[in-house]
């Protein structure tokens, strides 16, 4: 099987909703991970949830994603090496932008979740609270660390230092312990070994707007469309969040990857880095931002429509 044929079979898609917010501050991107001849192509997925006033949230997430994807493709022998370099590039881009325009961009920052799916398994680097889920055989599990204060509050409740009610109403729930904001990154979740993917697995990466729903409810929404293509699955997940009618619904992004069965046992090795990887930014629809290499856009249904906003 040629790498090109494998590329065409890979099923992935993302959808977004602005929710009840004035602006879409989430950015996501899919990007092909080129492989050596005879090996299978991988997929890189990046989700960023921006923060800061004066449109800094929107700009921060877009800037981080674009710089992360570009640096990732510039090379590195291991996924770890590529992730580390790309995260640094994203962080430095934000530092440079804030330095150039401190009046408007002070406080600009973003979460950043990057997921690489290859036949060797799932690898990720995560800063912040953008969740990565794996749906396997009817059950949804969160894979990445949560760098908001939710786990800290949970711990306090467990040890009796706080009541459940205090924890649930605390304004700290959605605040972050780490972000990509041009300073030192306090916490980075980057497991050392890939998590193998199995046939029928569904990978869901998103922004914390998804967490209007419980993990169980997200799992149910995935289960209802588990056999559907990634594009309709992503629409259904975003729609399930909107159906909850949370009056202050945050920006919501759902990006789906479904590993093809015959791809799981294919060899994988990075191709030699291209001098200037092609990255296409398309934010013509003002509720959606996507960065997808042209080669992938022509061979898949990735990210072509935003989810309907009611």
């Amino acid at each position: 099987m040629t790498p090109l044929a494998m590329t065409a079979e890979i099923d992935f898609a993302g959808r977004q909703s602005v929710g009840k917010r004035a602006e879409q501050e989430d950015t996501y991107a899919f990007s092909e991970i080129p492989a050596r001849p005879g090996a299978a192509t991988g997929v890189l997925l990046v989700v960023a949830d921006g923060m800061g006033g004066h449109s800094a949230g929107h700009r921060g997430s877009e800037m981080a994603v674009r710089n992360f994807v570009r640096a990732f493709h510039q090379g590195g022998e291991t996924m770890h090496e590529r992730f580390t370099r790309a995260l640094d590039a994203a962080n430095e881009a934000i530092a440079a932008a804030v330095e150039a325009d401190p009046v408007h961009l002070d406080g600009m920052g973003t979460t950043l979740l990057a997921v690489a799916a290859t036949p060797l398994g799932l690898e990720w680097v995560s800063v912040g609270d953008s969740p990565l889920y794996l749906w396997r055989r009817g059950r949804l599990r969160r894979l990445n660390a949560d760098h908001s204060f939710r786990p800290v509050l949970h711990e306090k409740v467990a040890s009796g230092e706080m009541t459940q009610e205090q924890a649930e109403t605390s304004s700290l729930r959605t605040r972050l312990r780490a972000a990509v904001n041009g300073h030192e990154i306090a916490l980075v979740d980057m497991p050392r070994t890939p998590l193998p993917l199995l046939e029928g697995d569904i990978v869901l990466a998103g922004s914390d707007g998804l967490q209007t729903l419980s993990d169980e409810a997200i799992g149910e929404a995935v289960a209802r469309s588990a056999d559907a293509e990634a594009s309709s699955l992503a629409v259904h997940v975003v729609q399930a969040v909107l159906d909850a009618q949370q009056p202050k619904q945050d920006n919501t992004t759902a990006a789906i990857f479904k590993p093809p069965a015959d791809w799981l046992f294919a060899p994988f090795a990075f191709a030699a880095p291209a001098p200037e990887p092609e990255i296409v930014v398309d934010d013509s629809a003002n509720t959606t931002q996507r960065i997808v290499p042209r080669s992938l856009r022509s061979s898949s249904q990735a990210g072509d429509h935003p989810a309907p906003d009611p």
Partner: protein
Amino acid sequence: MADEEDEKTRLIRRQSPQAQPPPLPEDETEIPDAGLAKPTRVLDWMMNPEGESDEKTKLVGPARRAVKTEPASAETSSDGGELDPVVGWLVVLSGPGRGNARRLGYGQNSLGRDKGERVSLDFGDGSISRSKHAFVLYEPRKRQFYLRPGDGANLTYLNGDLLADSRPLNPSDVIEVGATKLRFVPLCGPDFDWEDQAQPPK
């Protein structure tokens, strides 16, 4: 507007970059998760987050430009468990590490001497490739194991024969990488797979 602001994603701001960061241990793996490391202080502050404005700008994470790995959860470690159940083992018959075993999981198991390898042969045999010396695959549909050569120039032998392409693995087969001989011990196969269980493994 203030209400909405509360729901937005916001970073607990740390000290400004000009401020002197506190001294930190050289070994970055020893940097504790700050939120959990100082429960009393963080708790006080959580109960009264809008109090002292000074408190809001306190260091919440370590001020250090370092990529630090925070394990996501026990489930994603390579020690097995629900997400990565064991399907077999490779036992070191001879060479450095003799007497040890390494676990195999579903899908592709990369052999190498790097600690990040899924099958990490980090016993001191420098003639094993750092990464992807060879792969052991377990394919659950056919319940069959395979051995496949890796990406590098270092050779792999199966029962004494040079491995040129993917070959089925059978119980007690001997795999040779570098100066190390490994015996293949399957758990899954025709008579057992975790899929057979009514419940996924806990």
